[in-house]
């Protein structure tokens, strides 16, 4: 559905050229939900704007929905839907009118446009809001209206730029349901997010982008497996025994370098749940009492940290 080779964009600014995207290769298959994960400023939106014909790449080629990005931008536009990060509806316009006009720009007749629009309003739980001005809708409703505008021509490929930024957790979970339903209806979805939970919950495959380059790619599970193992955290009843504990955990096959902090000893080890019974017996054998044991599966944040040396959570929200 998408194939890109060395897609790059350099912006010229007063302080010199800025390489926002430095050569992105990517492939998206039909029917996938692919997530573009990265901090703000990593190049997510720039890449999306290039793939949606809004921004001319300075280098590289891409085929989007079967059309060449440079040779046939109109063909690309006909086949894709795009929901921009900052919204798409005009506060003073009525929701239904915006939807019908958008559909008509794709060549749809007025009656077909209204029919399709009302159907999407029902599907995205916007019933009764057709005549309302866009400015009078709640944040979640307005975001869903953006999505209606992006889907009005039944595109086979949908780009969602930060679809849930600024929404409350309930609206976010609700929107995830709609995105999944969209994919179940046969569409391919390419979304960007800087929320790990979102990428984890929603995406079949994730590409991690940082400083304009894709630094990792795979299913959420596979990416998380790349981080060497689970974190095993032991809380000791007697912190003076931490030296003994470190000796035991470091001896486990595949274990990383343990770290001790206060009463806690932490170590990364593959299949933390499986090694835990043996570890507990060993610690019992040398007379160490534990207050608590915790095994933590790696998160995408751990993935990002191990790939880039920085945590995603340090980035301020958009």
């Amino acid at each position, binding site marked *: 559905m998408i194939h890109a080779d060395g897609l790059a964009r350099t912006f010229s600014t007063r302080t010199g050229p800025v390489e926002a995207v430095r050569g992105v290769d990517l492939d998206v298959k039909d029917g996938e939900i692919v997530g573009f994960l990265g901090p703000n400023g990593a190049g997510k939106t720039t890449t999306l704007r290039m793939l*949606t*014909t*809004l*921004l*001319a790449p300075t280098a590289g080629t891409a085929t989007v929905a079967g059309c060449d990005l440079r040779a046939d*931008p*109109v063909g690309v*536009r*006909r086949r*894709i*839907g*795009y929901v*921009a990060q*900052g*919204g*798409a*509806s*005009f*506060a*003073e*316009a009525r929701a239904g*009118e915006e939807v019908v*006009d*958008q559909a*008509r*720009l*794709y*060549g749809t007749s007025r009656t077909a446009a209204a029919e399709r629009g009302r159907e999407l309003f029902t599907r995205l739980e916007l019933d009764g809001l057709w005549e309302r001005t866009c400015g009078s809708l709640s944040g979640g409703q307005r975001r869903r209206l*953006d999505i209606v*505008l992006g889907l009005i*021509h039944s595109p086979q490929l949908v780009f969602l730029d930060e679809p849930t930024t600024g929404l409350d957790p309930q609206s976010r979970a609700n929107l995830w349901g709609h995105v999944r339903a969209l994919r179940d209806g046969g569409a391919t979805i390419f979304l960007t997010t800087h929320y790990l939970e979102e990428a984890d919950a929603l995406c079949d495959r994730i590409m991690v982008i940082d400083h304009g380059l894709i630094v990792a790619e795979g299913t959420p599970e596979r990416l998380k497996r790349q981080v060497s193992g689970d974190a095993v955290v032991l809380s000791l009843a007697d912190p003076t025994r931490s030296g003994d504990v470190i000796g035991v955990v470091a001896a486990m096959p595949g274990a990383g370098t343990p770290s001790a902090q206060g009463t806690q000893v932490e170590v990364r080890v593959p299949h933390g749940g499986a090694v835990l019974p043996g570890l507990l017996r060993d610690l019992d054998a040398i007379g160490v009492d534990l207050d608590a044991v915790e095994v933590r599966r790696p998160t995408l944040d751990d993935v990002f940290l191990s790939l880039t040396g920085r945590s995603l959570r340090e980035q301020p929200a958009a």
Partner: protein
Amino acid sequence: MSFLRETWIVFSRALRLSLRNPVWVVIGLTQPVLYLALFGPLLNQVVAATPGLPPGDSWQIFVPGLLVQLGIFGAAFVGFGLVAEWRAGVIERMRVTPAHRLALLLGRVARDVLVLLVQALLLTLVAIPFGLRAPVGGVLLALLVVGLLGAAFSSLSYAAALQLKSEDALAPLLNGIAVPLLLLSGILLPMSIAPAWLRTLSDANPVKWVVDGVRAFFLGDVATATAVWGLLATAALVAVGLVVGTRTFRRESA
């Protein structure tokens, strides 16, 4: 065909939004009517006492100037609306459709021209009880020129808005261009009474030629050099406006 249809869709959407919030249409009309009521009567005395003015009474000199002023100022500030639409994501949303880029511009320009023509017609009608007498053919030609002028300045305003994407940057730019154009056009008083240096400066201003041309139309002098120069200056402004507007709207990174 699809180009005309897309232009129509953009035009009717823009017009619908204007009609729903007609405050700006009304404000745009109030200003020239105020000039007509509060400044026009002063001119009777000035025109009678000043040698070297073009022929015609004070209303035949003054109303054409107001029409041109309306054409420029009524259109020059439409860019602010585009900045608001751009910020709301509307422009971007329309740009991902297969619609012609030019239709996105021309639909909005057509709305502005229609609004301007209605205002210009009302202004001319209101001027009749004040004492304006002019041939119908000349007035219609004048309205055509006002519409074209509006198309030129509204295109330029949209191009500037799309380029700058900020009201704060747009306001000084538009004022910086529109005010000197106005002052050097002889709209309020004909440049025939200006000192030589000012007249030279004003000769370089295409709007001055437009104003002189529209004054000739109001006298019924359609087949004169002044009238032709006025039409040529209008055509040149329209060409510049449309070329700049088209290029800005076509640019892929705009």
